[in-house]
């Protein structure tokens, strides 16, 4: 008997099968089939970007953020990487009976602070309280809308061979931070989530680098899964240089010990951008001057091909990156 497994929610191969086999089967429309971070909808007055997301992180408070900040940043970033200027969002709270009111207020205050930084407003909401054990503490579901400026045309149809691939900073910090906090791995103080609203830095980039072709949010499944999805959707290869990937030494070391690949760990303040190579250096320069892009790097390029992602290793070898298959699990020895 086929059942839903935890791995169906990891953003990788099984998630894709679930989306293909169930959701797209019934919600069959061109916008959803793009499987982008937001749907960009052409309306009589312009283009509207719309997104929705659910947040179920454990623990709900972690170094560098909490479930509330995550909910706002995740929604804002989904809009921003689609080229939209985020405007409004809604939030639905599913709360477990017995959840501390003070913790709820802490979460909501954190959301408000993130909204202020991002310049968005929560304009509608909903609250449900369920019996103890029916959810784990607190789930937040959001929707967000934004407007896409007239001149912005981002998407899978834009990349061509030779385009540069860049990221705005160190990879895997969020995934490892939450894992370390959940499993009490003793990395306290050494790690913090990169959770941040990226719309302002992306707006800056849009203004100075019109050669941006597309962006993706590097959340579940990390850089590797996002790159693979882009390569498949574009029908091109993406060639990455392992030596160019920005990784904090703590993330690199801890992931190595645990047998986890940081390229598959989630981020909450990182994007991948594909950009005209002539503007790549300028983009890195602009990003580097911002706290959310301090470790921005060009990490590779788009190549002719058929949907593969290659990683050139420091030894000069090549390995393939694929969609994440199952949750990242620590090894035994």
């Amino acid at each position: 008997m086929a059942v839903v497994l935890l791995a169906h929610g990891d953003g990788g191969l099984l998630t894709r099968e679930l989306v293909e086999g169930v959701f797209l089967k019934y919600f069959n429309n061109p916008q959803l089939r793009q499987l982008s971070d937001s749907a960009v909808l052409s309306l009589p007055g312009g283009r509207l970007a719309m997104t929705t997301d659910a947040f179920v992180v454990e623990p709900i408070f972690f170094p560098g953020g909490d479930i509330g900040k995550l909910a706002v940043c995740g929604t804002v970033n989904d809009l921003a990487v689609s080229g939209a200027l985020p405007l409004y969002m809604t939030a639905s709270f599913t709360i477990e009976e017995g959840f501390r009111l003070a913790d709820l207020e802490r979460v909501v205050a954190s959301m408000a602070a993130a909204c202020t930084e991002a310049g968005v407003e929560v304009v509608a909401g909903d609250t449900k309280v369920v019996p103890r054990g029916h959810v784990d503490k607190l789930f937040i579901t959001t929707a967000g809308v934004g407007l896409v400026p007239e001149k912005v045309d981002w998407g899978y149809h834009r990349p061509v061979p030779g385009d540069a691939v860049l990221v705005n900073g160190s990879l895997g910090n969020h995934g490892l931070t939450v894992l370390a906090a959940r499993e009490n791995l003793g990395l306290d103080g050494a790690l913090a989530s990169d959770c941040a609203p990226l719309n302002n830095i992306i707006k800056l980039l849009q203004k100075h680098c019109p050669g941006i072709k597309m962006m993706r949010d590097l959340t579940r499944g990390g850089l590797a899964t996002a790159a693979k999805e882009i390569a498949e959707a574009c029908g091109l290869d993406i060639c990455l240089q392992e030596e160019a990937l920005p990784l904090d030494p703590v993330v690199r070391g801890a992931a190595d010990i645990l047998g986890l690949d940081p390229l598959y760990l989630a981020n909450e303040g990182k994007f991948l951008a594909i950009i005209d190579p002539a503007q790549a250096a300028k983009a890195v320069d602009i990003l580097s001057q911002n706290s959310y892009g301090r470790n921005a790097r060009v990490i590779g390029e788009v190549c002719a091909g058929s949907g593969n992602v290659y990683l050139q290793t420091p030894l000069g070898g090549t390995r393939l990156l694929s969609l994440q298959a199952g949750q990242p699990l620590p090894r035994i020895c």
Partner: protein
Amino acid sequence: MLKRLNDPQLGREMIRKVRERAARLTERLGRAVTLMEVCGTHTMAVSGTGLRGLLSGLVELRSGPGCPVCVTPARDIEQIIAFARLSGVTVATFGDMVRVPGAQSSLERERAGGARVQIVYSPADALQLARDNPRWEVIFIGVGFETTAPLAAVSIKQAAELGLTNFSIYSVHKLVPPVMGALLGAGDLKVDGFILPGHVCAVTGSRAFAFIGEEYGIPAVVAGFTPVDILDALYVLLDLIQAGDHRVVNGYRWVVRDDGNLKAQRAITDCFYTGDAAWRGFGVVEGSGLFIRDQYAQYDATQKFAGAGPASVAGPGLATERVGKSTTTGGFGTGDFLEPRGCRCGELLRGLITPPDCALFGGKCTPASPAGPCMVSSEGACAAYYRYVTNQPRLPGVVNANSGAAGSGAGCRKVEL
């Protein structure tokens, strides 16, 4: 030193030297040099660094029985699933075990069906789980080699000191030297040398593997896990083969002593006795399993939950039950170990095939839907090949914005950054 061990420039220079040496040897042998990396972590490292491809045509690297998840036989998986089905029991396990398929289920599926399965990072975490939840019966799945067994032993001793009554271990710990003896004794493995597991040797000592050279005339090098470590071991190994020298060389001296870690060895012998154990692909290997001593019987899940085996397996002694052919008679049989149909994990673990030789590989067996454990474990050879080496099938349905306009698959070229 760590910086040096990960220095890409040094690594690239060493690759040049290894390739040169391998080319000379290949010419002399008239074929590629065949080496076995015994340890799963080495398997992942040689695939993840692209080393396998860089040495292609010169050195063929085969995986051996060094992934603890992969060598756990199907009947033990069934037993673990049976434990998970017991009311009030929480199975505490390393993450890799969760997705290993049994005949019809897995811990992942049991968890989806309501079983309590908790991923832990060490036996100490499982012990803590039992202390924090006195109403739970916590069974820790003791999978691993000499590297993890001492930690399990310590947790048993601590449980005894604390007087815990809700903690036990299902010990399927295994010892690497006996299975290497079985592998070589079978006579069907054709390799020119071995890369030995650094972590295991840190406990056993390099001398525990000296018999490989002395009895079977095959050289071996104990290796660490950074690219430079592995390349250094390859270099030395190729040198030994070229010279016809059959020694076992310790190439990981800053971690591994000839006699190993005596304290860890003592912890193991204090809590465990050695007995015959079943290995996937090997059948029963004499003296290769670690079983909990009677002194600590209350922490032995096979005794504590003696009626809880799968239907075909009654009571304790499961892991020591002799099925298939014994290694002493030569050759291996799978007996009633219920391997998945068509799965060749067993032959893979014996170094007889590489993952693409299995008809299920990449088709009916993928990381998303694994048929055998070698596709599941983060140290499994099939997982390494699938993840790092092969092309995966495209999934239908995603809009391909450039369909029809794609290039000819020029692959990766050097990007100037």
